[in-house]
């Protein structure tokens, strides 16, 4: 890079374009700052409607290095420029910097339809060939940029230039009419960055009501603005816009989304409470309500349990210390937690499983599965039993489940339930084939034997004999059945 820098310095000092630098009058100095900025944002040097500017560069580097060199020399001479950078940047929001459109050398020239490929020519060739104009297109450029101030680019042309990545001052479009034409042109051009830039300008220079009104009939621009406001986090303006458009559900969801940014639980709870009244759809409203209620409960449970844990009196917390807090966990996870730590509590307390079930209308199926998983983990087989036992009106108990018993078996097995317990439930599996599969898999011999007996399948029963231990009770059982 330094070699290039030396070259450029040399050229710089020998070029007749020296005239326009820092010794110029004040207004040109400020213009230089503007153009410096323009140049720094690396535009597309080769303009499609300028004629033969080839992308010749000093040492084959991208032309941007020229702009780099200008900045270097500029900044080294006037360090004050740096200080003013920030203020100027704010002021320059009327400029829009846009991406250049063309991707690479050969493609761009082909795209222009010229058959000569860009030449990475040596310095001397460049000198002799295309004339002084090519040396420092950057140097030549800013003068043309100056013209931007005074010349009248129509909205259409402005958009065109913006698409090509040129700096354009939009300030000149003062009347509402002009601004709207500019916007429509930008939309017609389809380039998102241009549309966004124009919208930023309009947002700054138009009264809100007018802006909203105009956007209402311009769907594409409207969507762009909404997206822009979402990205920049301008929540208030976004909500105002959505309310204006009567996009009530969008407003609600947008507002709700904000809760994710609130880390403090109490504040989040308050925020969610506020969300309940928002115009969600009927279904969603109940979900938001549930979300709030759940968090409220979790805060209470968390505080209480933490107290219990530190006090050290509660056995369950001693045996199974908590690995994480229950805050912000989904409902089912909370239910599992409650079935694990607070199973026996009466319905009145906030932490009892039955209370949760009632408050959130948890369906039987989900409840039973979760309670089963929790009790199985604690190896509380009696509790498991009680879950499925119902007394009918005659006083007889029988086992029932809102899910297939094969699911119960699965969960029990995952928690390493002893065979006797497993066997109970395998026996209850309705589908014979599944029952046999599970029984064989988990070595519930009695069930296998009984099932084969019921099926009157001598062959299988005999075959199964080799799977049981010699001299065991099971073997005897098989033999006695076979002999009858």
């Amino acid at each position, binding site marked *: 890079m330094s070699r290039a820098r030396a070259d450029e310095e040399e050229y710089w000092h020998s070029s007749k374009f020296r005239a326009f630098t820092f010794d110029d009058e004040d207004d040109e100095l400020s213009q230089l700052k503007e153009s410096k900025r323009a140049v720094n944002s*690396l535009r597309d040097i080769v303009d499609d409607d300028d004629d033969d500017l080839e992308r010749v560069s000093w040492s084959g580097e991208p032309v941007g290095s020229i702009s780099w060199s200008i900045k270097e020399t500029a900044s080294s001479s006037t360090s004050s420029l740096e200080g003013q950078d920030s203020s100027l940047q704010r002021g320059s929001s009327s400029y829009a910097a846009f991406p250049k459109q063309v991707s*690479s050398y050969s493609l761009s020239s082909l795209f222009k339809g010229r058959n000569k490929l860009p030449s990475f020519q040596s310095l001397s060739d460049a000198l002799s060939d295309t004339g002084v104009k090519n040396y420092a297109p950057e140097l030549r450029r800013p003068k043309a940029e100056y013209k931007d101030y005074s010349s009248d680019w129509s909205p259409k042309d402005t958009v065109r230039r913006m698409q090509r990545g040129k700096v354009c001052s939009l300030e000149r479009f003062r009347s509402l009419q002009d601004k709207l034409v500019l916007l429509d042109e930008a939309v017609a051009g389809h380039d998102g*960055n241009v549309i966004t830039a124009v919208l930023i300008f309009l947002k700054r220079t138009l009264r809100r009501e007018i802006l909203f009104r105009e956007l209402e009939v311009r769907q594409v621009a409207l969507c762009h603005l909404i997206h*822009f406001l979402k990205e*920049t986090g301008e929540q208030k303006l976004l909500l105002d816009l959505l309310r204006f458009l009567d996009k009530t559900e969008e407003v609600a969801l947008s507002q709700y989304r904000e809760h*994710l940014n609130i880390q403090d639980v109490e504040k989040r709870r308050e925020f969610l409470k506020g969300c309940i009244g928002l115009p969600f759809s009927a279904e969603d409203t109940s*979900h938001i309500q549930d*979300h709030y209620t759940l968090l409220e409960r979790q805060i209470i449970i968390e505080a209480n349990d933490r107290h219990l844990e530190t006090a050290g009196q509660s056995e369950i917390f001693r045996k199974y210390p908590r690995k994480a807090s229950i805050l912000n966990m989904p409902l089912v996870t909370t239910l599992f937690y409650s079935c694990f730590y607070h199973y026996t509590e009466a319905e009145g307390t906030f932490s009892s499983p039955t209370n949760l079930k009632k408050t959130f209308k948890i369906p039987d199926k989900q409840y039973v599965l979760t309670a089963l998983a929790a009790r199985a983990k604690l190896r509380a087989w009696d509790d498991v039993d009680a879950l499925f036992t119902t007394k009918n009106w005659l006083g007889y108990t029988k086992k029932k489940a809102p899910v297939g018993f094969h699911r119960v078996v699965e969960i029990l097995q995952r928690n390493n339930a002893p065979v006797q317990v497993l066997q109970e439930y395998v026996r209850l599996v309705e589908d014979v084939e599944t029952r046999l599969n599970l029984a064989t898999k988990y070595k519930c011999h009695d069930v296998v034997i009984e099932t084969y007996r019921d099926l009157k399948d001598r062959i299988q029963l005999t075959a199964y004999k080799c799977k049981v231990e010699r001299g065991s009770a099971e073997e005897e059982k098989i033999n006695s059945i076979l002999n009858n």
Partner: protein
Amino acid sequence: REDRGRSPQRDFHILFVPRRSLLCEQWLKEQGVLGSFIHREQYSLDLIPFDGDLLSMESESAFKECYLESDQTSLYHAAKGLMTLQALYGTIPQIFGKGECARHVANMMIRMKREFPGSQNSIFPVFDTLLLLDRNVDLLTPLATQLTYEGLIDEIYGIQNTYVKLPPEKFAPKKQGEGGKDLPTEPKKLQLNSAEELYAEIRDKNFNAVGSVLSKKAKIISAAFEERHHAKTVGEIKQFVSQLPHMQAARSSLANHTSIAELIKDITTSEDFFDNLTVEQEFMSGIDTDKVNNYLEDCIAQKHPLIKILRLVCLQSVCNSGLKQKVLDHYKREILQTYGYEHILTLNNLEKAGLLKPQTSGRNNYPTIRKTLRLWMDDVNEQNPNDISYVYSGYAPLSVRLAQLLARPGWRSIEEVLKMLPGPHFEERQQLPTGLQKKRQHGENRVTLVFFLGGVTYAEIAALRFLSQMEDGGTEYVIATTKLINGTSWIKSLMEKLEPAPF
């Protein structure tokens, strides 16, 4: 700013790839650091070649932007990419399209051509036809689990820019005498493209057909290595040695792919994979798509990964032209209760995208579409396929069927069905300079560029390649897209980010 204070000598440059965005610059400006960058450039990548017949823009957010946010900037870039392509390979005389976005891209292309008349060039057109397809014309295909070799690698491990990272255990070189003491801990990174002979041969096959290819290859390579025993003369030995590098490369390639195939097989033979696939196929063949599905419910209850649930539930919705309100509410409630209420936001996005929505018209169009386009083929042959449905072992990707029917006999034969699919369909012709009109020789294939706006899966690519090499197909396909996707990455791009923003 901090960095600058630390090392004032350092120059900071920023390179935006693929293109700079105004929002980025705005934000940098607000932070007060925009001026600190000496260079702000953009390195424009529009269409990136991934293989001899595959181009991608790798724009992850294209689908979300176009269909959720009505931001069509990525379409603009697609159009520009196409203009560049035409500059290199000649103006494409015929443009067909289906979908709103397709229409936009075509309009932009035509307009760009008008505005730069100088770009008319004298290159002989390589492409005869351009087919632009919106992703939302076929929302079904990305949701189903791909069953080609490459598709499965992507589904399970994720292929990033033709590279895949695999668990290293199976790739540890087996040296004699060393009892596996140094097991590698870094994931094994492999590059996958058609430069690798074996990969090119097996990538697009249905996974069940890969095993036999590998074992045949193993025999061939073994036999080749055995040749060294037959080499007697110096000349023969010399010849053998000269072929050695190629044989070694082939052997290492075979070893890698045998390991990968083993890894995949472990997954595809699992009960969970089988159950999932069964339900997918039930939905795709139209069975019980209007009821709450037991397997799905069980998966939610067992808290399977959320994306898997979302893929299945969206698949059911698409195969039913939307779910009945009761069924939809039931699923939503279960999902929110199990995974958290904040997922309302994601569910809302999925509804907006048309993936998980209530049935509006009260009618289910899917059976008609399925029957007319022959999307479900019962008699699929995985080993020696005769139809594109082999890529999903029974389901023919809707998008590829549309391409297939366009070539022969043309879309007029499926007008009715086309109307059931979202978005307009159209045809445009672009003028070629005189003398460039191509006259196809008899037996010469037409070349069609298929551009998927919103993403394409490897299975669809495989299906198009299958069509290309069909004996009397008549058309060769080149594929372009905004992004290479699979069901998981696609749904992920539509999920609401739930962590607070870092800024």
